């Protein structure tokens, strides 16, 4: 019987040489006549340990990492196929402290299974949610989602059940399920990890959504920068279709759901749901005004559920274990778990799925291990490039939509980017404006012109030109963008700008006391 060796196919592992490692293991095993079976699993989400090689032993899966191709010979010499001792040996994977205390519901299988193996997926409780859903009526499925308290994980935190209910109750000959997989926020990667590491959970979630509201066609709008996710999704959709988990008369239920992956063309703003729909329709990706809501007039003018990858991927477990099970995680109105992505200047960057309520400080220090540089962490940006910067004084804030909202910050998609004390927050504010200028679709005036003027005003502030007047102009401009932009791109750019200005006035050449309200 051959020994199972796990080498991730996740992009983060690939970028660190996982393919070369896998090849070296194959070559070395062949040379030694060792019978092995390499499984290309997803990533466990501990990027500092990639390439993380695991070996299945009688005691469980033993992890080695970070493995480089030149380490392979030594690993074989150390008899790693049987869990042998080696300086890269980390012990049982499930006992690693980074993983041990996580609450992986959505990510339950990621890193464990072969992403494109339907057998694996089913063996690890996959498609139980769909089977339960097929036994319910649409309203029953929607009720489970509503009961779970699930809120949009893309960042807007809109209750998923309410959205689904609207689509359910809007009559139309054709409805659609659209998955927003245009994961463009800096410091975020949970969508990619799910799609590369457990695509069936997304497929199952979308199928359940389709069955619940009567949509027969689904689209995954995938950013073009995710070629590996594209491959995995294509493979998984083909497998699911061949096994009648997709297509007509799913599992003999009489229900139909077709799924297709469509790739974006590199525009950040196409992660905004209405411009995503425009792009999916083959038009320029510019923002639509709302209402009408996509739930009523979405793709091609038809009722459409448009949800983020993580929202949809959380649905199978909700259906499998029940809405109440999921709702029992979390705090306040933030129910369930959030896959948090640690990035930036941290020792241990990676994915942490925890119930809401964990504090920033726990994440930065207990999981992240503090800064990579060893210098004090001065600021973190939570929720992507449009999220606020938080100073050390706010690190005890629990991850909770309302708690963040109360300090003029956002959780967004759960990305956390840490900066040490060498950061210049004025430059970060300028960068926020620049990001908006580069990515603006150009439809609404505050964003189209305001972002470019914002960069210019920041340049003047940094140069110290008409300092007080330009600080005031920056505040006025931020107010205009905040209140008058058509979508969140222009409307939230003031978050990083003003939070930087308010929390770190000295970087803008101001004394703390000079800061305005």
């Amino acid at each position, binding site marked *: 019987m051959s020994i199972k060796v796990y080498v991730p196919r996740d992009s983060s592992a690939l970028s660190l040489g996982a393919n070369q490692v896998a090849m070296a293991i194959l070559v070395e095993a062949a040379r030694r006549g060792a019978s092995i079976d390499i499984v290309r699993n997803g990533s466990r989400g501990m990027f500092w340990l990639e390439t993380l090689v695991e070996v299945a032993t009688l005691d469980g899966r033993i992890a080695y990492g970070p493995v480089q191709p030149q380490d392979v010979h030594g690993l074989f010499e150390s008899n790693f196929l049987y869990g042998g001792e080696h300086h890269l040996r980390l012990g049982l994977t499930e006992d690693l402290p980074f993983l041990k205390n996580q609450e992986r519901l959505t990510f339950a299988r990621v890193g464990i299974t072969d992403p494109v193996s339907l057998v694996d997926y089913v063996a690890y409780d996959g498609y139980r949610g769909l089977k339960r859903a097929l036994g319910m009526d649409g309203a029953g499925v929607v009720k489970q989602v509503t009961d779970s308290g699930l809120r949009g994980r893309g960042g807007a935190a809109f209750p998923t059940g309410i959205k689904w209910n609207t689509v359910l109750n809007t009559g139309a000959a054709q409805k659609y399920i659209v998955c927003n997989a245009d994961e463009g926020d800096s410091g975020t990667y949970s969508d990619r990890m799910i799609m590369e590491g457990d695509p069936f959970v997304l497929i199952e979630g979308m199928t359940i959504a389709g069955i619940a509201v009567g949509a027969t066609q689904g689209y995954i709008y995938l950013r073009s920068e995710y070629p590996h996710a594209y491959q995995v999704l294509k493979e998984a959709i083909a497998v699911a279709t061949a096994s009648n988990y997709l297509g007509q008369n799913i599992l003999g239920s009489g229900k139909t759901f077709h799924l297709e992956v469509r790739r974006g063309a590199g*525009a950040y*703003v196409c992660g905004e749901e209405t411009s995503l729909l425009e792009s999916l329709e083959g038009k*320029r990706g*510019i923002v639509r*005004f709302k*209402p009408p809501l996509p739930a009523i007039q979405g793709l091609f003018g038809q009722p459409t559920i448009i949800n983020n990858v993580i929202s949809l991927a959380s649905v199978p477990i909700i259906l499998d274990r029940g809405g109440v099970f999921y709702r029992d995680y979390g705090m306040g109105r933030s129910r369930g778990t959030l896959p948090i992505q640690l990035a930036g200047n941290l020792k241990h960057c990676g994915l942490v799925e925890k119930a809401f309520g964990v504090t920033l400080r726990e994440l930065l220090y207990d999981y992240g291990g503090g800064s990579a540089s060893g210098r004090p962490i001065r600021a973190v940006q939570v929720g992507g490039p449009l999220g606020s910067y938080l100073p050390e004084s706010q690190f005890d804030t629990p991850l909770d939509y309302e708690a963040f909202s109360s300090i003029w910050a956002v959780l967004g998609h759960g990305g956390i980017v840490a900066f040490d004390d060498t950061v210049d927050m004025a430059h970060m504010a300028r960068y926020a404006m620049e990001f908006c*200028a*580069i*990515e*603006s*679709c*150009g*439809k*609404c*005036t*505050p*964003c*189209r*012109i*305001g*972002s*470019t*003027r914002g960069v*210019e*005003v920041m340049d003047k502030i940094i140069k110290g030109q008409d300092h007080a*007047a330009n600080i005031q*102009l920056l505040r*006025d*401009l931020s*107010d*205009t963008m905040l*209140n*008058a*932009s*058509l979508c969140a791109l222009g409307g939230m750019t003031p978050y990083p700008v003003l939070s930087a200005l308010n929390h770190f006035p000295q970087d803008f050449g101001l004394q703390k006391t000079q800061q305005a309200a």
Partner: protein
Amino acid sequence: MACNCGNGGCGTDYGTPARVSEKLVTLEIDGIEVTVPEGTSLMRAAAEVGVQIPKLCATDSLEPFGSCRLCIVEVEGRRGYPASCTTLADNGLKVSTQTPKLAEIRRGIMELYISDHPLDCLTCAANGNCELQDMAGAVGLREVRYGYEGENHLKAVKDESNPYFSYDSAKCIVCNRCVRACEETQGTFALTIDGRGFESRVSPGQMENFMDSECVSCGACVQACPTATLMEKSITLHGQPEHSVITTCAYCGVGCSFKAEMKGNQVVSMAPNKDGHANHGHSCVKGRFAWGYATHSDRITTPMIRDNISDPWREVSWEEAVAYAAKRLREIQAKYGKDAVGGITSSRCTNEETYLVQKLVRAAFGNNNVDTCARVCHSPTGYGLKQTLGESAGTQTFDSVMHADVILVIGANPTDGHPVFGSQMKRRLREGARLIVVDPRAIDLVKSPHVQADYHLKLRPGTNVAVANALAHVIVTENLTDEAFVAGRCEAQAYADWKEFVARPENSPEALEAASGVPAQLVREAARLYATGGNAAIYYGLGVTEHSQGSTMVLAIANLAMATGNIGREGVGVNPLRGQNNVQGSCDMGSFPHEFPGYRHVSDDAARGLFESAWGVKLDNEPGLRIPNMFEAALDGSYKGLYVEGEDIAQSDPNTQHVTAALEAMECVVVQDLFLNETAKFAHVFLPGSSFLEKNGTFTNAERRISPVRKVMPPLAGKEDWEITQMLSNALGYPMHYSHPSEIMDEIARLTPTFHGVSYAKIEQMGSVQWPCNEEAPQGTPIMHIEEFVRGKGKFFVTRYVPTDEKVTQKFPLILTTGRILSHYNVGAQTRRTANTAWHPEDVLEIHPHDAEERGIKDGDWVGIQSRAGETVLHARITERMQPGVVYTTFHHPFSGANVITTDNSDWATNCPEYKVTAVQVMKVTQPSEWQQRYRQFSEKQQELLQQREMMKAQ
């Protein structure tokens, strides 16, 4: 009617289009209660009660877009600042449009706008009519703190490629109004936004210039632009207008309403009238821009006479010219009999003018030798619809198309020939209506952005009736008829006869496939769609009428509509698309030799008695000569004098050499026109006419809509056309004493039952009115035949397909068919004297690659086109629009000689010429045809004779 607002138009811009809903909602805006239909925007609701919310990207001709953000408001109980253009009114809302916070945000937005906008207001062409300027004032912008050193577009290069308007990207505020107008209003999709973010710029095509792009120069973008970005060059030249006058376009049968924007007597712009019932604020390149011919230097403004056509012209006074014409016409009558003279009026004349011409012929000449150019276009429509339905007119309004589910276009090319209606049709097609096109060519409608025909029946020219019979065969044999409708509304026996006839195997699509070239299956599917697809409307043009079986085809069309119950309500009907502005009107006015105004036969004693007593003369009870009969009679020597008003028979009528021979055979040809046209080169008296800008009157469009034509400038030659006809009549001894065209209309109304309710006062009050307008329908009749047909019961006619005599042979193996193009109008006398020639400098021969290859013809080669009637030479354009075996050209340029080739064949019932089918051979040549060389010589000679009048004047 004049407006002095100085804004280039008056009336409120409500910001977003009106919505129709039975449900009303009531809300409060700035404390004022307002009730509006559900679906109305807050912005429009506010405007309804006079509350103007600042806006830039919104205008009520376009769907809301929500980009400028100036129109934000506060709504009690709602977070943030919703845009009022995209937020819908709802019961109980309390909306504030002016608060300190809103003022602050709006100033912030305006400051951003102006930070990337030139500050040349005082020298800007839009000064006085700039919404950006207005809004800067409205929001109280006082400074731009960003300075002007930052990124900007101020140095962008202006695109001057379009002859009529410029595109100055530096002034663009990226409101997308032009892009949206091109999409929503015009349906061409030529414009887009290039780039994103700050780089966003309006772009014709993919960064082409306007002329090289797909832009059709309809002007919708110029109309929509709130700044000087898209600016009409005539406004740049003359400045903003100071008053405007509502009038009606003198081009095609759509009859668009325009505001002539004036500075004194100078037209500065022709702006489409938002309140126009036929066009709703839209226009095409002709009506919008091609009005410069009215003051072109070729205009002749002094009467001229000569004894022979080889003599130089002599300028004379009006009195002398008219007396000379009267004298010579009377001499001819004295010498050859009273029937030796006649008159031709034109579909380009007003109703009143045409009425006077036929009155002059009937009352002063004393015969019925009057005809109109409708003879050569829609006479079969008049005949066929009168026979079947009882009225010689289309059955619908244009707006009816918005309720059609299936649109059947036969032998018409609306996007070129009737562009504004074409745009409306395309809008309906984009909304989901299905489309069947019956045409030998792949016209634009067959496939254009977001529009595609479900079925294109690409028939061989001349086989319309075969295709119509095959469609009817399928409908009857597959039991798709509306028996209840027919039983209640139509004559039973005629229906039974027709049914039996079309059901015969010889009329099956399979049997007729060989003749028509249309696959039987396609015909079957199209027939099923027409009969069962919901409201089905037929639109047809000269591709139906200009055939030897033109009248048969009109009967066949009416049969189809009646058999399927597609008549008598909105969304259906039989709709002839009239070629010229007043085809309908000129027919209504009794310009045919056999009919008095209102389509009453001259042999009808009661009708004749009415006119005899009104006009105080005895009238002839025998129909007079039709145009082709006049030519025949002239060549026979029995017809010697002709009065032609506004029509250029030497260019527009078929078999040119036959026509010119007939003109040469006449002793006195009196031409009343703007220019020394082709016919005038054979004339003895030239009476300088007035353009539509120089006179009062009315035009009646294809939907029977009588619209006002208003004098916006004095006639260049001093007289309106009706005055000239009146002078001639008086000189002939038949007195006419009208002081204004309204008096002529009053007479028409008195004598014509369908016009009893029409008056200038009513038109003034309603804007326009659709006849019948009388005691029964005081507000006019948008849709006809609702309860019953005008003739009582609708009547089916058996329509046997008879192939034309114009057969292809080895010697003439191709079929030539003719048509029109967007940028030109009819004989081109007007449009050739405008910058429209930039799009179409010459007529070309369209030929399929296969036919070209066989003949060794390359794109752009000179090719000779020879028919049994004559030969001409054109440049070839190789295109797959054509089917093999069929070639196509237009007749907008006289030198092209398209009608040198067309033959004397004509419709069996009305003599409408068979322009659409001429057997020809095409071959490569190296020089113009013999006819063209002779034409050039003759034309040059006539120009010299015209020039000599100047020298004589100098002496």
